């Protein structure tokens, strides 16, 4: 290995993530999804797929609730952890 390759090995050394990286809430990419979901809703309504439409709407509602709980819960969890850290 020449000098450049040695320097690259050094420059691209592994680094550690933050200690709590696993616990941070992830952001689902809700906004870009909306367009195709809206389009799908129109199509389903047009073909009169009543039951399928309800099913689809239910899953959309479920994903939004899960995202909301993920965000709110993640914030609460972090706050609790900080309070515990201060108390110790």
């Amino acid at each position: 290995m020449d000098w450049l390759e040695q320097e690259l090995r050094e420059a691209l050394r592994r680094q550690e993530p933050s200690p709590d990286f696993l616990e941070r809430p992830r952001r689902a990419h809700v906004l870009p999804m909306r367009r195709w979901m809206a389009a799908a809703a129109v199509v389903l309504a047009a073909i009169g797929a009543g039951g399928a439409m309800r099913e689809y709407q239910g899953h959309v509602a479920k994903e939004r609730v899960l995202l909301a709980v993920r965000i709110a819960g993640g914030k609460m969890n972090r706050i609790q952890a900080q309070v515990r850290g201060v108390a110790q």
Partner: protein
Amino acid sequence: MKRAGLLACFCAALCAQQFKFDLDQLASKASDVVDLSLNGSTLQFAAKFLDSKDPDEAKVKKLIEGLQGIYIKSFEFKKGGGYAESDVQSVRAQLRAPEWSRIVGVKSSDDGENAEVYVRNEASKITGVAILCAAPKELTVVNIVGPVDLDSLAELGGHFGVPKLQNAPKK
């Protein structure tokens, strides 16, 4: 009569959220926005599609039982200064109303995030929760309407889909 009915519905929608967020002007400056308005009907409807056999979804189902709404606005910015202190104050001022009590306020030295939790009490019962998190590049406001179990909420947030690590990772 019809107009009064519509007006009543409109008021009900506004009143469902327990305080105004007034932060829409931040959306144009934000790199990422989450805007969720889930009223009681939506929560009840969604609950039917939560899988009771999945441990996490079952816990969520239990958590949202009896709730009248979850409202979240969260803005992420590429650089600091995306929002003004007055934006945060406009929310905080509403949470100084007598029915609200601040139960937690913490500031993180790691990332400079200020986090506050308020509960709304009516007839000695919790009828709502507000969470306000202001970090240099992020502002998040949450209003949960109804009797929410904060410990269950925090527990779900700690391990949603991923088991919580018991010990800090070794270097």
